[in-house]
Each structure stands twice: as structure tokens, then as C-alpha cells.
């Protein structure tokens, strides 16, 4: 009776019996094709010694383990660790490029299936080895994984890349186009600085579990237009800076994107309508007036149009990966047409016609009207 009553005690763990995992880095051992898993563990032992500031930088510990596959490697931690490893607070999972090329389904499946993992962890691909990323530190955060998670949280509402959590990654892979994205972490090293710097800018494209291509930083910013619920912004200069000392910069905020599929004689054509607002950030040697604003708006629209067309072209020709979600749109709106296209979608995709149109509205000129050095002139 009592043992029945107290049965639920069996999964009780005291706080000093667990090791808290905050980040996982997954690498490949090229010698034997094993998987190396590096865990970033919270290190309460050192952090509580408040007197010695020197140790404060070591708030996390790195533990490494190797196994035939991901599950095996995690299992092997118990052989070297006295404490129970707790995954419930994991923030980021970083996979090395080699793993991504080989295929990520095994890891993603484990993570999605396991009870302790939350599917809101951020996923990354490391440009080089994933372990090295965890070795680096943010200047403001003692725990690299926590810092990365915070960074992604900010980028989600106001960012230059598309942050991807496990859910979104899986949704991408399971969608009709079978493609997904992952932000790439690079470690930027400078000659005279001993330590590297973590940088998230590029985006990796996955198709059917494998890495198929990489978008540059500039292209990554534009991906925002195709992802709902992510508010992005980017800096655009509608007029080339060289001309007569005139320069101007706008910050463009994504408001909405509407993609519609139009069918004409069995040919599908996409109409991409993007709505954005903009804010003037820099304005020099120019008088602000309604006419100028109108001109700026059309110029910005043209610049953005051009950039987006380039991006779509790259998706079609270089990667042949439908990260733009065209397949999903056909599937959702006209499922009867999709049945016919489904089998040979990637034969159709590179040649799909599309039309991009932008609607930019300058809402805000900032706190001042004209440039400070022109104020006197304007006051006459």
C-alpha cells in the first residue's frame, strides 16, 4: 500500500543529484565515424564561490562523450559522470557541418521523441566543429548556450536572420517542400585577438535531411520575408552613397508578406506582395519633403525587389530547394493541383515564374527633420 502510494517518488531527484545541461554540441569523429557529443553543464560548484572572481568565468563545464550514435553517446555519459544528466533546461543544440552533410534525422528524431527535451530549443549549424563554439564565451554571458538563446530571443522580434527552433525545423522538413533552414554559427577570429567571437549570420539550407546550400549574410536577412511570425528589419540604402556626398539609409521593417499562387494553363505563377514600413536613419545633403519621401519609397521598393528576385533565383537554380514555402502554398490553397505536382515538384520548382512587388511606406523620419549641419541653412 505504502509502496504504491510512494511510487511517484521514484522519479524524484534532488537538486544536488543532477547536472543541468544547457547546450549540446554534436560533432563527428572522422576517424571512426562515431559521434562526439559535448555537453555544456551548469557549474554550481564554482559559481557559488563569489569571492574568487577569477572562477566566475567558469560558470559552465564542458563534458565530452563518444558513441556510435547520438543515443549511445548520451548513454556513455553515465559512465563518466556521478550525477544524473538533466536535459529539461537545454537551450541550444549545435550540429557541426559534417553532421549536417551526413544527415540530421537521427538526432532530430531523438530530440523530438525524448521527454526531457523541449522542442523550443534553438538549433544551429556550426561552420566548423560544434565543440569549439561552446568553448567560446560571450563577453556578457558566462554560459555560452544561455547567451546564444538570449540572442535568438532578441532576433526573433527584431532581427537580421531567421532563428530556428526544433519545432520550426521539423515543420520545415515535414512540409511539402521537405526543406528547412538553420542559422550558422561562425567563430570569427582576428589576428591580434587570441579569442574568437561567436557570430550568427549565414543560413544553411536543408533539403531532405541534408545540407544543400548556404545563404550569405545579406541573403539571410531577406529570408525574413518568407517566414511568418518573425519580425525582421534590414538596412537599405536606396541611393548609392557615392553620388555628390549624398547618402541616405533607411531601416525597413517587415510588416506582411502575401504570396498567392495563380494558375494559368497548368502553369503556376507566384505573386509575392511584401508590405513594409521604413524609418529614415541617415540623411545627408538632402532636404526632406513629401516629394523626396515618395522618391525614397519607390527607390527602396526597387532595391528590395531586386534583392529578393536574386534570392529566389538562387533558391531555384543553385540549391533547388523550396525554402520559400511555395509548395506549401499550393498544397494549402489548391490541394487538387498539388497532387499532380507533388511527384515532380523539384522539376517544376526551378522554372516557376513569380512576380515580386514591394509596398514601402516611410512612417518616421526620426527626431530631426534635416541633418544637424544644415539646420542653420534651413532656419533662414
Amino acid at each position, binding site marked *: 500500500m505504502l509502496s504504491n502510494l510512494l511510487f*511517484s517518488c521514484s522519479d*524524484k531527484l534532488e537538486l544536488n543529484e543532477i547536472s543541468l545541461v544547457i547546450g549540446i554540441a554534436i560533432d563527428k569523429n572522422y576517424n571512426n565515424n562515431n559521434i562526439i557529443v559535448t555537453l555544456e553543464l551548469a557549474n554550481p560548484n564554482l*559559481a*557559488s564561490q563569489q569571492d574568487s572572481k577569477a572562477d566566475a568565468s567558469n560558470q559552465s563545464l564542458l563534458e565530452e562523450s563518444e558513441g556510435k550514435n547520438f543515443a549511445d553517446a548520451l548513454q556513455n555519459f553515465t559512465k563518466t559522470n556521478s550525477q544524473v544528466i538533466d536535459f*529539461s533546461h537545454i537551450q541550444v543544440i549545435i550540429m557541426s557541418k559534417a553532421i549536417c552533410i551526413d544527415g540530421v534525422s537521427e538526432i532530430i528524431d531523438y530530440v523530438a521523441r525524448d521527454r526531457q527535451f523541449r522542442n523550443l530549443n534553438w538549433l544551429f549549424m556550426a561552420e566548423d566543429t560544434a565543440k569549439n563554439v561552446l568553448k567560446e564565451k560571450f563577453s556578457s554571458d558566462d554560459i555560452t548556450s544561455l547567451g546564444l538563446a538570449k540572442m535568438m530571443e532578441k532576433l526573433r522580434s527584431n532581427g537580421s536572420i531567421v532563428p530556428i527552433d526544433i519545432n520550426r525545423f521539423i515543420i520545415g522538413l515535414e512540409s511539402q517542400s521537405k526543406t528547412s533552414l538553420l542559422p550558422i554559427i561562425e567563430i570569427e577570429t582576428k589576428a591580434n585577438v587570441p579569442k574568437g567571437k561567436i557570430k550568427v549570420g549565414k543560413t544553411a539550407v536543408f533539403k531532405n535531411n541534408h545540407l544543400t546550400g548556404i545563404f550569405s549574410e545579406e541573403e539571410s536577412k531577406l529570408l525574413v520575408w518568407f517566414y511568418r511570425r518573425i519580425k525582421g528589419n534590414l538596412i537599405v540604402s536606396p541611393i548609392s552613397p557615392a553620388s555628390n556626398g549624398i547618402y541616405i539609409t533607411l531601416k525597413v521593417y517587415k510588416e506582411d508578406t502575401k504570396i498567392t499562387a495563380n494558375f494559368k494553363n497548368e502553369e503556376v505563377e507566384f505573386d509575392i506582395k511584401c508590405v513594409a514600413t521604413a524609418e529614415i536613419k541617415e540623411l545627408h545633403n538632402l532636404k526632406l519633403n513629401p516629394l523626396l519621401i515618395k522618391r525614397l519609397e519607390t527607390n527602396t521598393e526597387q532595391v528590395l525587389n531586386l534583392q529578393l528576385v536574386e534570392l529566389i533565383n538562387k533558391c531555384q537554380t543553385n540549391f533547388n530547394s523550396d525554402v520559400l514555402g511555395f509548395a506549401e502554398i499550393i498544397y494549402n490553397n489548391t490541394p487538387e493541383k498539388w497532387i499532380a505536382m507533388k511527384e515532380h515538384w523539384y522539376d517544376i520548382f526551378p522554372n516557376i515564374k513569380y512576380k515580386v512587388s514591394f509596398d514601402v511606406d516611410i512612417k518616421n523620419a526620426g527626431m530631426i527633420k534635416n541633418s544637424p549641419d544644415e539646420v542653420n541653412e534651413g532656419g533662414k
Partner: protein
Amino acid sequence: MLNSSDTKSYKQGTFPLHSVITENLNKIKNTFSNCSDVIYREFTIDSLKKSAALIFINELADIKLINENIISSLMNIKPLLPNDALKNNLIDIIKQRFLEVSAVDELTDLSELEEALLNGDSIFLLDGEIKALKFALSSFKGRSISEPTIEKVIRGPKEGFTEDINVNTAMLRRRIKSSNLKFENIILGRKTRTKVHLCYLDDIIDEDILNEIRKRLKNIDIDGVLEGGYIEQLIQDNPHTLFPQVLHTERPDRVAGCILEGKAGIFVDGTPFVLIAPSTMMLFLQTSEDYSERYMVSSFIRLVRFIFFVASLLLPGMYVAIVAYHREMIPTALLISIMESARKVPFPVLVEALIMEATFEALREAGIRLPIPANQTVGIVGALVIGDAAVKAGIISSIMVIIVSITAVASFSIPSYDLGYSIRILRFVMLFLGGLFGLYGILLGLLILFIHLTSLRSFGVNYMSPIAPLNLTELKDSFIRFPLWSMDKRPSFSKTTNRRRQKQNSKPEANKPTDER
């Protein structure tokens, strides 16, 4: 209500006074044998040529008044007028012509006489008369009116009830100047013969509730009623519950407020606490001050009080449950800092919480019992031992100290001590449930608690009302307090005819003359 087995007492109405004074005196002396505090003053009234006696209990009767007013006027009775002789009832003549006392009563029975004596009245016996006189000149030097010690308020009257029931009823009468305010006198206790007043406004209180209270009070037949709590335990609806179903208060303004809502007050002689029935759960979470402050302020205070009421019940249990079973619910950064403080603790978190809670209960109990000079010492020792040393020694984690302190502070935000006691016990139950079954256990515990609470009644009124059953108009005076002008109806348990308690549109703006300039 006299005890039949008690041989020395008289059954009511069966022992009429004898016309020979010595006979009566002997009977009384026999009844009060070995009672050295009963004083017999025997004397002769010269003008009547009759022997008389004055009997009273020392210090219960006002000796100064007896000396100055009664003895002197009785001894100096002038010779009778001629037409007085027509009346053969001397007692009546004395009562009408010679006494300088206002409260005089006639007694004909020894049992009445005994009761009057015990209540502090003085008895006058005259030879040849089968009637005695009772002078209500009782005086007992009780505590003077002072500020309530338990129920303190910032805004509101600073006087509290005393141990003297007459003073208490007078305090209430002064607040409600209405002839509808009734004080029904009931004597309870075989030996203590305690005066109990059932107090209510007869045009507001519901007859059924009143009859129920009367019935239950009349059922009480015990040796002693020394405090209202004796009565409370004998009249509450469900004797086997942790929750108090009768509120007690020492504030006259609070009693007045409750009586105006159609509740009844039970005054007990010898205690400054007045019982309020029927009482709902909400009543225990309110103070009289809630109505004195403006409605936004008191709503805020009530919400704070309610939140901390819940916290004092659940906080330790929730903490233990979350830390032991549901770590993923804690933000990562917070969890890491909790882990830091719990790193060296050798106990499971449940044991840790139990140690701390038990220590706190001990400190609290010691604080009440200790003499005032030692009180401070315990405070310091407690703060040092559990606050600092235990954490430094690594026996207790610092987070646990914070949790227990918050719980302690929260438990003092419950205005009623009675409810506070039940919450204290339930807190341990929740702690065990949380430690053994996690949040699942706490939810189960809460479920059982709510089922129990909704099953409770206080004199037929649902304990959880107005939440269950839901009553929207009464919710105006629950978690938040609506403005006074919007609470224009009395609670639903008051008399059903005309429940309106103020004129409509009492809202201040509406009173403004619109076209005055």
C-alpha cells in the same frame, strides 16, 4: 437551566420565601455555606420595629453605594403615614417611598434570590414579608476599554470590547441606535451561569437563521462557559473541520457591521470576543478597515491579502514539488542559482522544508508564550540560527530560507487567527503532498480541499458563498470591494423582504446639483 443533581441549588419556582426572616436567612446561609465572600448585614428598622437583612457578595456589589444609599435610607425610614397602614405590604411602601436606588426588583423565590446574589445584586429581606428586594448595584472592577490587541487597524475606532458584557452591549448600542437591536439574554453553564446575549437587528436578520442559532444555544448544557470558544465549538455546523465557521472579533465596529448585514452576534460575559454567525470564508479574509478606506485602496489590500493567503498555504509545497519533480518550470538562470545554494545541503528538499517550517512554528509559538523581555531574544536567536548560521553551515539552502520567510510573512497577512491556524496545518499537508506526488499531489489536495469547503455550511449559509454558489451581487464585496454606493443590497442570507440598504444612486456625482451656478 439549573442542574437538578445539584442538591444545594433550588429548582426554579419551588421555594417561595418564608415570612419569617430568620427562616429565609438560614436557608440562604445554608445554600452559601463556606462562602466567605457573601456578606450578611442584619439590622433593625426602628420606625417599623422590624428586623431586616441585606445580603450581597463582596466586591461584586458596590459597597460604597450600598453604604451611602441603601443602608442609610433603610435605617432612617420615617414613621408610616396613616394611609400606609391600609397597605399591608411593607415592601411596596419601602420601594415606593424610601429607596434612593433606581434599579429595584421584587423577588419572591429563593432560586431567583440566589441567582441575583450571584450576579452581584444586593438582596434586602424584611421580616414578615414574603417578597424580597433586589438592588442592581453590581460593580466589578474590570479592565477599562482599550485598543484591540489582535485586530489592529490603521483607520477606524481604537476601542475594543472588554470582559464585561454590559460594557460590550453598551458599546454596540451606542453604534446602532435602534430599538430593533435586540439583546436576548441566555444563561449558559451549569456552574458558571454565564450571561450570553444573542444580539441582532430583528428587521434585518432572517428568522430561520435566528431560530437556528437560538435552538443551538439552548441545546448547550455544560458545566462551564469560560469563553466564546466553548460556545463556538458547541454550535458550529461541522465539528470535524479545520476551518472556523464562527468568526470572533473584539471590535465593536466589526460586530456592528456584521449585524447590519443580517448576522447575529453572540456576546459572552467574561471575554472580549464576540462571536459572529453565520460566517463565510470571505468574512475571515476581511477587516473592518476594508470599508473605511476608499474602494480602490481596500480592493488592492484585499487582493494582496488574498494572494498571500494562497501563498501561505501553497508556497512551501509548490517549491518542493517544483524543485523535486518539475525543474523544467523554473527559468534556467534561476534554477542554476537555486542549485548553487542547494549544492551542499545534505537533506532531501522535503526534509529541508519540514525542518524549516517546524522551526518557524516553534519560534512563533514561543513568541506568543514568552514574557515580553525574552521575546526579543528568541527573535534574534531565530533570525541568526535559521536565517544565517544554518545557511552558512550548509544545512539549509538560502532559497529555502527565503521561501519560509515569505510564507511566514504571508501567514500574518490573514486577518483572522482562526483561519490562520487552519492554513498552518494545511500547509504541512500540502508540503507532504508536494514532496511525495509533485504538483499532481498539490492539485489533488486542493481538489479535496475545495470539495470539503463547498460542503461546509455556517448556520445554513454556504461557507464558500458568494463564490460557490455564485452570487454576482455579493461578489462585489469579496476579492475586491466595490464602492459603497454600488453595494446597495444586503447579503442574500438576510431577510428577504426589502434587501435594499441605501437609497438608489448614492454615487456622489449623482448628488451634485446640475443646474446650480
